[in-house]
Every structure is written in structure tokens, then in C-alpha cells.
């Protein structure tokens, strides 16, 4: 099992001096992934609401 490369959490966060770039890249990555997790869910609720409203309108 490969062992943890960094002495402390602080060292891990500093990422060998390039913290801004590594964590910046992963931040963009995380934001996009979260967006692509939330967005389909919101879209689904919007679609269901839209179709149900249409069904009511058709029934009258």
C-alpha cells in the first residue's frame, strides 16, 4: 500500500510550493463536476414540472 507522501497536512496543502496551481486546477475541476451533478437534477425537476403543467392544461 503506497504510504502518504507528505509529513503533515500543512505540507500536503502547500503541495511543494505549487499549492495555488495544483489546488486551483482541482478547484476548477471540482466546481465543474459539482455543476454537472446538480444541473441535470434541476433540469429534471423543471422538465417534470413543465410536463405536468402541460398535462393539466390538456385535460381541461
Amino acid at each position, binding site marked *: 500500500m*503506497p*504510504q*502518504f*507522501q*507528505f509529513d503533515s497536512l500543512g505540507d*500536503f496543502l502547500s*503541495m*511543494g*510550493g*505549487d499549492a495555488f*496551481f*495544483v489546488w*486551483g*486546477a*482541482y478547484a*476548477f*475541476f471540482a466546481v*465543474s*463536476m459539482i*455543476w*454537472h*451533478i446538480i444541473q*441535470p*437534477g434541476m*433540469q*429534471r*425537476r423543471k*422538465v*417534470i414540472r*413543465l*410536463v*405536468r403543467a*402541460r*398535462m393539466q392544461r390538456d385535460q381541461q
Partner: protein
Amino acid sequence: MWQWLYRLGSPKLFYDMTTGFLPWLTIVTYFLLIVGLVWGLGFVPPDYQMGDNFRIAYIHIPMSVGAMGIYAMMACMAAMHMIWNIKLADLVARSCAALGATYCALSLVTGSLWGKPTWGTYWIWDARLTSMLILLFVFIAIMALRSAYDSENSGSKAASVLTLVGVVNLPIIHYSVVWWNTLHQGDSILGVSSQSANPPEVWSPAFFVGLGLIGFFFQALIRRTRNEILLHERRSQWVQQLLTSKQLQE
């Protein structure tokens, strides 16, 4: 021979098939991503040359490959939509565009953030980064064209035509950018790091992250396509019956 193509292309079949399959795909994807990323970020020894910033490669490379793969898939869907008029293929292509653009943009952002510590500048006109930039332009052009039409049918057909024109052009664009690059600079530096002989313990987390991102793409694609199917088939009997049933809690 066409019967099975049309049966396969029926949105209802796709919806029913994916209902059971989706949760499993999501679980496997998250597992792969978490394992790969934690491993890559924390447990891989720093690179002797670049120190720790090579860890960006774990997401940069899958993103670049993913963007091109997504475009290829979108082109196949566009071809199926234009040639055999399979509506499901267009719904899938529509969902591919947004995801493809995101993967492409992420590849550019991570590439430039990786470039700063390694070569001192955020943007270098390297052949692969430039081709990725142009691929992003094409993705955006396709989405812009699709939304520019009032009627959804024409918009989809127009976007499919542009996708197919794009798929013919993109290899030529890549070749011209590579040639143009050799005209102005030596060979691209970015390529060096990923081809250098990485020992297995550096390479294996990339395997997890790569698979995880492919899984993530399909999982997001299926969810988006299901929404498009519900919207597109709203008039059909099975959608109305599905929506009136209580157990659909959202």
C-alpha cells in the same frame, strides 16, 4: 436490418434500460474518482523534475482525451440523426455538447495552470493546447447554432450538419496547428512529461481517474438524455403515465 436500429433508437427503451443501470454507474464512478484522486494527490511520490505540480496531469490528460472522445461520440450521434433520422441520437448529441465543452475548457484551464509553474507562462501556443482551444470554439459554435433556431427540429438538424462538418475539419485543423507549431517553436514541451517512462505507481492512479471521468461523463450524459427524452416525448402515453404515478417524488 433497419428494424433493430429503430427499435434500439426508441427513447422509451433507452429510458427503461437506464432506470436500473444508472445508480450502479454512479456509485462505481464516484468510487473510482475518489480512489484515483486521493491516491494521485496524496500517495504518489513527487516527480524528480517538476515536484508536486505534475499531479495536475491526473485530471488534465483524461480531460483532453475525454473532450476529443466526446466530440467523436457526438459526431456519431449526429451522423445517426442525419442519416437514419433517429431522434434519440440527437437527444444524446444535445447532451454531449455541454459536457464536451466543459471537459474541453477544463483541459485548457488545467493545462495553463500546469504551464505556469513548469514554463513560467499561463498560455503557450503549444500544438495540443491550441487544437484543444479550437475544439472548444467548435463546441461553442455547435451549441450557439442549436439554440439560435426557434424550431427545435431544425436546430437539431443544423447542429448535426455543423458537427459533421466539424468532424471532417478537426483532424485537418490539428494537423495544420501541429505543422504551424513546428514552424515557430521546437517540439511541444507538454508532450514530454506524459510520454516519459512513468513507473507504475505514478501511472496507476491515472488509470482510476481516467476510468472515473469516463464513468462520470456517461452518468451525466444519461441523466441529461433522460431529461431530454421526457421533454421530447411529453405527449406520448408512457411519459404521461409515468409522471402521474405517485412514486415519482421529485
